[in-house]
Every structure is written in structure tokens, then in C-alpha cells.
């Protein structure tokens, strides 16, 4: 999505007002979903969403669109399962077609140790309300006939866990569904309006400084991704976020009907098929922090080697496009949501490689926090204060992380 689309849709674009009840920095999925739920759930519409570039230009436009809830700790599973449920009804709620498709997610194990990890994940998921079951190699082959159960002779499939709720949706349509829903209810979305500073009154954050002038706000929410450290520094807020690039690629179109989303913890890769038939895949994030969105040959080489072990037909396809996003990686691989300890400034960050699937639940929870002033129980464990309190939420459930 780009400037062309911003003029194509039947929406009214306003110049910024001098003052809003709520100013959200970052018009990606999380910022826009928060704005949308503020309007629909809490009737708060004196809201502006500021975006440095075009809408959805950050990681909301650079992910692999996978929606799932089979995470590694109870708090995460409950949170992401709620997000999966919200995604399933998002088309009905917003009236926008987000191309949501439930495909199931196959998580393969190639060693006994990985089998133990998958068993424990399946049991823990079931206990916390997400459906994940163990399957045999034969069942995996039935679900995904293209799978090579010998793993190219190197990574034999011993079994795996199957998460029937695994789904995908079209990333920019999700972003625009929330943007449209928010704008039609009177919320101002201001693309190409970078925030250059935070207005402060004593210890309190009272607004934002932009190239278009200062905008005062009752509450400022940072929904910034990879550049969150820059925004936090404007309020002397220290955050435990490292910015790492995450790369992905798509191939040319293949016969539709590939089947489920296929992932492997040991190989650290995930493959799905887009609605156009392209095979979409990714791996873990780059090891060194960087703000560079450059794709690398090392990524192409390593992800190709991994996925062709499991899905030999991919060898015959061509790489159409690669891209990178810069992810806000938290030390425990869990998100950071809620108050910052600074009056007037809230934060939603640490979305690393797991942000897209969390857009509805994250936005809904942040909207509730802004509207009521109380942190919803669903996200209470994910506050920034958990690090000082030594309650890190270490989660090994993300495919992009070791």
C-alpha cells in the first residue's frame, strides 16, 4: 500500500488539530487497531495516529502474515488465542475483506528432543485453551503431501504438533481494515508526519512535536516497531529492545492448495502459500542488531537450504522477491505493553517476529488500558516493569527465535 491507495479509498484526510485526547505514534497494525478499538469499544474518537511514512510501511507490511496461538507459556497462549479468535471474526466486524484463511499449522520435529518439546507445547496449549495436538509422520504427510518425511535424509520427520487454528490474512488489508474503520468514526490518521520529539511538562508527557507543529495530547501511545528506542529516548525512557532485521522471500506462483503452514523449530523456518499461489517463507532474525532493511545473500542461501530439505518441490521455483523488516526484539521474546512509569506515555513494543498475529488482541487491550486507565488482565504479565521485578516472560514459542 502506498500514496496511491491513500487517495484511492473513499476517506477524508484532515490536517492535524492542535490537540487530541489520544495521540498514537505509528500507523502500523498495532497503532491502527488501538485507534479502531478506542472508537468502537470505548467511543473515544478524538484520536490521532501519526505515521512517519505511509500507512503500514513498517513491519505490518513486511511480515509473513501467520496467525497462530501455539506459544510456549500460558500467558502468551491465552493472549494469542484471543487474537486468533478476533482475527476469525474481523471480516464480519469491520466489513472489510482481509482474506483470512484458516489453514492449520504443522510444526515438525526432527529429533527426540524436539518431540518432547512439541509434546509439552501441545499439552500446555490444550490446558490454556489453544488446540494443539501431536501427530505422526504419516498424518503430517496426509496434511501436506509435498512433505519429504526423510527431510532430505538429514532432518527426518519424527512427528510434530498440529495447530488447526493456524491461519493467514492479507497484511495490508488488515492494516487498512483498521485504518478505514477508525477514520470513518472520526479518528485522524496522519501519514508522512514524523514525530520529532515529545512535549513534556515536568515529568509528564503532554504531546508530540512534529514537522507540522506541536500537538498536545492527554495520552501518548508509542506503537513504534524497530525505531522504538528513538521514541523512548525522547522521554528518557530506557527500553530493553534490540532492533534486528528479519528477512522473508516469496517464489513465483505454484499450484494452489499447498495445504497448511509448515514450520520447524530445529530448522528455524516457516513456509506458507499466499492466495496468489506464491510460496512465502522466512527464518530467524539476523544475529546482529541493525536498522538496515537490506536483504542478504546469506539469508537466501540458508533459508533455501532449510526449506528444500523438507519440501523438495521448492527447488524448481524461482525467488521472486525478498525483503526485510526491522524488528523490536525483547530479551524474553515476549511483547512489552502498558504503562512506562512516565505519566502520559504508554508503550506497545517488543513485537519482534510475532507482531502481526497479535494485532487485534494487542490493539484491543491497549485501547482498554487507555479508556479505563486499568491494565487488562490479559496483558498484565507483559508490562515494562517485569524486567526490574525479575519476572521475564521467556517464551521459546516463536519460530523466528532460538
Amino acid at each position, binding site marked *: 500500500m502506498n500514496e496511491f491507495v491513500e487517495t484511492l479509498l473513499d476517506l477524508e484526510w484532515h490536517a492535524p488539530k492542535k490537540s487530541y485526547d489520544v495521540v498514537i505514534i505509528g500507523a502500523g497494525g498495532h497503532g491502527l487497531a488501538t485507534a479502531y478499538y478506542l472508537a468502537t469499544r470505548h467511543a473515544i474518537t478524538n484520536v490521532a495516529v501519526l505515521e512517519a511514512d505511509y500507512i503500514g510501511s513498517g513491519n505490518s507490511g513486511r511480515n509473513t502474515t501467520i496467525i497462530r496461538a501455539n506459544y510456549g507459556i500460558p500467558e502468551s497462549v491465552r493472549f494469542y488465542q484471543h487474537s486468533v479468535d478476533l482475527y476469525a471474526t474481523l471480516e464480519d466486524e469491520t466489513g472489510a475483506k482481509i482474506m483470512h484463511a484458516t489453514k492449520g499449522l504443522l510444526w515438525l520435529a526432527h529429533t527426540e528432543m524436539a518431540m518432547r518439546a512439541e509434546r509439552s507445547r501441545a499439552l500446555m496449549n490444550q490446558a490454556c485453551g489453544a488446540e494443539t495436538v501431536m501427530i505422526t509422520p504419516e498424518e503430517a504427510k496426509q496434511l501436506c503431501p509435498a512433505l519429504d518425511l526423510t527431510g532430505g535424509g538429514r532432518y527426518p520427520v519424527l512427528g510434530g504438533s498440529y495447530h488447526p487454528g493456524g491461519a493467514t490474512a492479507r497484511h495490508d488489508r488488515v492494516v487498512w481494515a483498521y485504518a478505514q474503520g477508525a477514520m470513518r468514526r472520526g479518528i485522524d490518521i496522519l501519514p508522512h508526519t514524523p514525530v520529532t520529539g515529545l512535549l513534556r511538562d515536568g515529568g509528564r508527557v503532554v504531546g508530540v512535536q512534529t514537522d507540522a507543529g506541536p500537538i498536545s495530547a492527554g495520552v501518548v501511545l508509542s506503537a513504534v516497531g524497530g525505531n522504538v528506542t528513538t521514541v523512548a529516548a525522547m522521554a528518557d525512557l530506557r527500553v530493553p*529492545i534490540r532492533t534486528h532485521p528479519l528477512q522473508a522471500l516469496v517464489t513465483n506462483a505454484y499450484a494452489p492448495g499447498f495445504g497448511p503452514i509448515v514450520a520447524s523449530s530445529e530448522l528455524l523456518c516457516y513456509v506458507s502459500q499466499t492466495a496468489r499461489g506464491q510460496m512465502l517463507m522466512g527464518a530467524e532474525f539476523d544475529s*546482529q542488531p541493525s536498522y538496515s532493511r537490506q536483504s542478504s545473500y546469506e539469508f537466501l542461501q540458508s533459508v533455501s537450504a532449510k526449506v528444500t530439505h523438507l519440501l523438495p518441490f521448492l527447488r524448481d521455483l524461482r525467488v521472486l522477491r525478498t525483503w526485510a523488516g526491522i524488528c523490536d526484539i525483547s530479551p524474553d521474546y515476549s511483547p512489552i505493553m502498558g504503562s512506562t512509569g512516565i505519566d502520559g506515555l504508554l508503550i506497545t513494543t517488543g513485537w519482534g517476529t510475532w507482531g502481526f498475529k497479535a494485532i487485534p488482541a494487542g490493539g484491543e487491550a491497549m485501547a482498554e488500558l487507555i479508556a479505563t486507565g486499568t491494565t487488562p488482565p490479559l496483558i498484565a504479565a507483559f508490562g515494562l516493569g517485569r524486567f526490574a521485578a525479575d519476572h521475564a516472560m521467556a517464551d521459546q514459542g516463536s519460530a523466528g527465535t532460538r
Partner: protein
Amino acid sequence: MLWIICPTCGERPASEFRFGGELPSVPDWIVGDEARNVDYVWMVNNVRGVTTERWFHAAGCRRWVTLTRDTVTDTVVA
């Protein structure tokens, strides 16, 4: 591709190295042992621009290298 000049081995690809993290530094304005300790353990500068960091030449001489890198372009400065 990122290339790193190792004092022992010369210019080598970054894939031979293991990233060892930025040099920890707690800002002076954070006061109190507890607050400084929390910052040292958890918080990072995550610099957008030139940063100083440690790399371990795992597939080479197995020594540590300190270098400055521009995180915007992902290239080594010195």
C-alpha cells in the same frame, strides 16, 4: 554482506563471527544502585547510527574483536 577486520586474520565475512553485543553503558542520569543494576542487566542503547560492540571470531582465531559499526547501513566503521 558485512565484513569485519580481525586483527589476527584480516578481513573476514561476518558469518565467521558470533555477535557479542554492544558495550554496556548505563547513562549517568540513572541514579541508585538498584536502578543502575536493572539498567545494566536489561536495558540497551540500541543505537541508530554508529555503535561500539564486541564480536567473537568463532570460526577463525577465536579471539574477541571490538569494533564500531554503523547500524543504519550495517557496515563497519572501524
